[in-house]
């Protein structure tokens, strides 16, 4: 048992309460803001000596000096002389601690006088109520970091039932940009989650949206792990290794030659997949892309009509000259052209209750989508998507939307999350639990501004996702600017270093000034955690993620430059067949248009055939090469008829 480091004190002006107490320590004690302490009472209550666990939330220091003027007078106004006083004034370190837990819990009484001890690891478990979910046989603890104070190092666990459901769910991270706190924390937490999520609770996977830079582009590559971090990993029971199973998805660039991601280095392309959608996929989420002010009920009705009556159906109408089967944006445009031409020819203003102006407007907006989301949306309807229904356990699926326009980001986000939700509802996603990580929540679910589809969807996940196993891990720089219901429904909140302006907002009023100061000065790798089992926020340290950091990865694996079409096709096909050469690609594609070549490449990548060359070539239409016309053999003329032959003509 360690020796006492402080004593509880209470005065009439500063009494102890059931939720707060005060104690003093020696000047050299290791107590600081965030330190967990234990008070041993002296008087038994109902036969039990009370033990109170608290966390230091405020500290005071003062001497017996009554006014600063006395010090000035004492040193004749010379600060330099003050340091030479032979005796230091009597000084106190007085701390205020917020109660984490009282044992016994009833009757709940003000904290009694007693000695104060530094909490050791078993004390930390009791103080944070972790003992209730770290039981042998019913352990649902997920290590989030190590609590350190004095000589104590204690692992802090989150309760999986409160992190991933069903009791509560979701996690929200706040922190300033540039300190790699948010991304690093999520990478670390996913590692911990994949390692410690109880087998009996089923499978788990994660879908991460990479919204900026190369942050999440190298999750499968090993990163630098310092010795100090290695010790943390050991303490936390997680191997300091990159993720074993990671799949990347990214749309093409607008030109369509290469994937629009920083992870385009040929050495890393083995698990990078194209993300392309056709008309069918997009039309379901058309409202994500259409400005609600612009698209009214009439337009909505026409879009619904197209979705239900036209798309993927053989559509006949007296107005049209032929049967249309609309499966791509190109088909849709042809259909619109015919409808409008027919109306013009009949000089009619409406068709099937839809006014010609509405038809023109919807055509304009929908056709525009493939331009605005070029690279993601294909005119000809090829689809390359996440493996919905075949998600694998302990796999991270990264969707790189970092270089996309806002519209395309919204569309990707809306569709993928909706699909995930649909599959989880049907229990056929492939995994039982799914974590969705979204950064920059300020942008996707702002507290103000117009309601939009993405925000509604995020609200829906945060409020109902836990019943489905759909868990939102979200991050942002300014929590105060995120919709209250989204952050409010996050049972676990994590805070890295904070901006002082953000800390001045009302949402942080419950924190003591000292805690706010600590938050504003947190080191890299330090977090403040709020979790349903913890009655007060706890400070922990987590190891640097054992994956390659974005900046380092970008230097080691520079992104491939978008070169010629041949080179792009060559790079793509070589992932499937390393024997393919650039010359072969050039020969094979020489006769075809850019669009045809891309279509053939995309189809090949999607099919992943055994014989890549044959499959690739089979995607092209037959063209018989032009040949030099041979000179006709001269046939010897038969003898001519006499001019006067009466039978001749």
């Amino acid at each position, binding site marked *: 048992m360690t020796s006492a480091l402080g004593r509880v004190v209470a005065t009439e002006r500063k009494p102890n309460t059931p939720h707060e107490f005060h104690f003093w320590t020696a000047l050299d004690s290791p107590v600081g803001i965030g330190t967990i302490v234990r008070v041993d009472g002296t008087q038994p209550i109902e036969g039990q000596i009370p033990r109170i666990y608290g966390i230091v939330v405020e500290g005071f220091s003062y001497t017996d000096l009554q006014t600063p003027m*006395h010090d000035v*007078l004492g040193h004749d106004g010379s600060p330099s002389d003050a340091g*030479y006083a032979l*005796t230091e*004034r009597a000084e106190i370190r007085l701390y205020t601690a917020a109660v984490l837990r009282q044992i016994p819990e009833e009757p709940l009484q003000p904290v009694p006088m007693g000695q104060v001890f530094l909490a050791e690891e078993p004390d930390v478990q009791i103080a944070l109520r972790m003992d209730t979910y770290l039981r042998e046989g019913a352990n649902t603890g997920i290590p989030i970091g190590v609590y350190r104070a004095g000589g104590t190092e204690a692992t802090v666990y989150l309760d999986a039932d409160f992190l991933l459901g069903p009791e509560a769910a979701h996690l929200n991270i706040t922190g300033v940009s540039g300190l790699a706190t948010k991304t690093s924390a999520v990478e670390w937490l996913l590692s911990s989650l994949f390692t410690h999520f109880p087998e009996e609770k089923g499978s788990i996977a994660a879908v991460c949206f990479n919204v900026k830079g190369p942050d999440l582009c190298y999750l499968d590559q090993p990163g630098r792990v310092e010795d100090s971090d290695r010790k943390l990993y050991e303490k936390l029971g997680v191997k300091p290794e990159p993720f074993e199973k990671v799949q990347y998805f990214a749309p093409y660039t607008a030109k369509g030659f290469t994937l629009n991601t920083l992870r385009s280095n040929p050495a890393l392309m083995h698990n990078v997949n194209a993300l392309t959608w056709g008309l069918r996929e997009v039309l379901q989420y058309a409202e994500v892309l259409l400005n609600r002010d612009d698209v009214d009920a009439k337009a909505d009705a026409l879009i619904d009509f197209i979705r239900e009556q036209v798309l993927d159906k053989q559509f006949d109408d007296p107005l049209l000259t032929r049967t249309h089967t609309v499966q791509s944006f190109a088909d849709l445009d042809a259909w619109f052209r015919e409808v409008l031409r027919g109306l013009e020819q009949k000089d009619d203003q409406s068709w099937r209750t839809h006014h010609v102006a509405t038809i023109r407007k919807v055509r304009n907006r929908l056709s525009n989508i493939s331009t605005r989301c070029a690279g993601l949306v294909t005119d000809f309807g090829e689809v390359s998507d996440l493996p919905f229904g075949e998600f694998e356990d302990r796999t991270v699926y990264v969707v790189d939307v970092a270089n996309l326009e806002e519209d395309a980001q919204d569309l990707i986000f809306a569709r993928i999350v909706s699909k995930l939700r649909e599959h989880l509802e049907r229990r056929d996603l492939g995994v039982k639990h799914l974590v969705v990580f979204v950064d920059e929540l300020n942008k996707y679910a702002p507290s103000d501004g117009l309601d939009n589809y993405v925000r509604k969807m995020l609200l829906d996940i945060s409020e109902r996702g836990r019943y489905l196993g759909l868990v939102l891990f979200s991050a942002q720089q300014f929590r105060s600017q995120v919709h209250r219901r989204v952050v409010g429904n996050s049972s676990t909140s994590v805070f890295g270093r904070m901006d002082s302006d953000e800390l001045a907002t009302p949402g942080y009023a419950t924190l003591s000034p000292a805690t706010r100061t600590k938050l504003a000065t947190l080191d890299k790798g330090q977090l403040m955690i709020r979790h349903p089992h913890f009655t007060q926020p706890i400070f922990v340290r987590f190891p640097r993620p054992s994956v390659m950091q974005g900046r380092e990865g970008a230097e080691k694996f520079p992104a491939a430059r978008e070169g010629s079409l041949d080179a792009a096709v060559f790079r793509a096909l070589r992932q499937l067949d390393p024997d393919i050469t650039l010359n072969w690609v050039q020969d094979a594609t020489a006769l075809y248009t850019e669009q045809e070549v891309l279509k053939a490449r995309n189809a090949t990548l999607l099919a992943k055939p055994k014989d890549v060359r044959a499959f690739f070539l089979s995607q092209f239409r037959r063209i018989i090469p032009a040949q030099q016309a041979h000179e006709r053999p001269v046939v010897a003329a038969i003898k001519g008829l006499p001019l006067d032959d009466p039978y001749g003509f």
Partner: protein
Amino acid sequence: MIGSRNSGPDLSSRAALTFLKSEFPDISVSDAPAVVLERPAAADPPRLSAVELIEHKKFSSVPLVAEPAANRTSGFGGFLDGAQKVQVLAYPKGVPIVLGTVSAGIRCRVERRLITWKERDPAVERKLYLPLAFLGGTRLASSERFEVVDTSADREGAGVDAHPLGLVDRAMQLVQENRESLENRFAEDWCDTEGTPLFIDGGISGSARVATSGLAVGVIKSHRTLYLEDSALPTLFALKKGERSSVFRVSARSRRTVASWYLRIRSAAGQDPLWGLVRIEIADSPDAVSRVDEISRWVLAESSPLSLPDGRWDKMAYGIRDAEEFLRAIS
């Protein structure tokens, strides 16, 4: 005699009253708050006392070399102080019942911080001072908690009058003697065991062991008696900050002879003539005069930090204030 009334009897007063009720069931004492008496401010009349100079032929001033703050040093390893509290708990039949509390302790300086001397725990003693003869009994009652001191007789054993104020004065005198005795015990222990000088709040002549020890330095703040002749007064009052007087010998009946001198530790400009003036006592040894300057510099150095808000801050070393606060906290 100044008195003040508390809001209610404190723990020790209540215990004393309970003890009295059990020992003297026939006397009536109420639970009224105790009256706290200050130490008699004018116990001795102000006077001048002629002394024998052991330095200089004439009472003179000696300027000490002013040292920059960075070079100031002090040889004091500890600070001894005592405290006393006198409470009149009740006046059954006009007879004062006095509870006297005395305490003493030494605060040591370790790495510029003051801590309690570990060789001897600070002491707090509580005694009941009762004129047993006037309370209808002559037996000395005692309990585990209280020692009873009979105030019915004076120092020579003669009976005293029943005047309540006289009985209180007698009790206060006994309390003061008890405090001095307690302080002396601490000082003696220090001188016997430690190797660095002790800063004692008050004189050192009350104990032979202390008065002859080279480690005891008494610093006296009160000047009811000025040890010099009329003619030397202007010299004394003219002492500037950092100046000391000639060294003289102080002898008194029932006390040991010590070497002494005056030292001005703060400028008295605009203040009364005794402002910032202390008298220092050390053992009257052959090398006494040679130690005077060094000890004076130590005492000067101890004037920082200030002892404010204590009213005697002009003369009080911070170490003594710390010891006083410490004793107040524990007694």
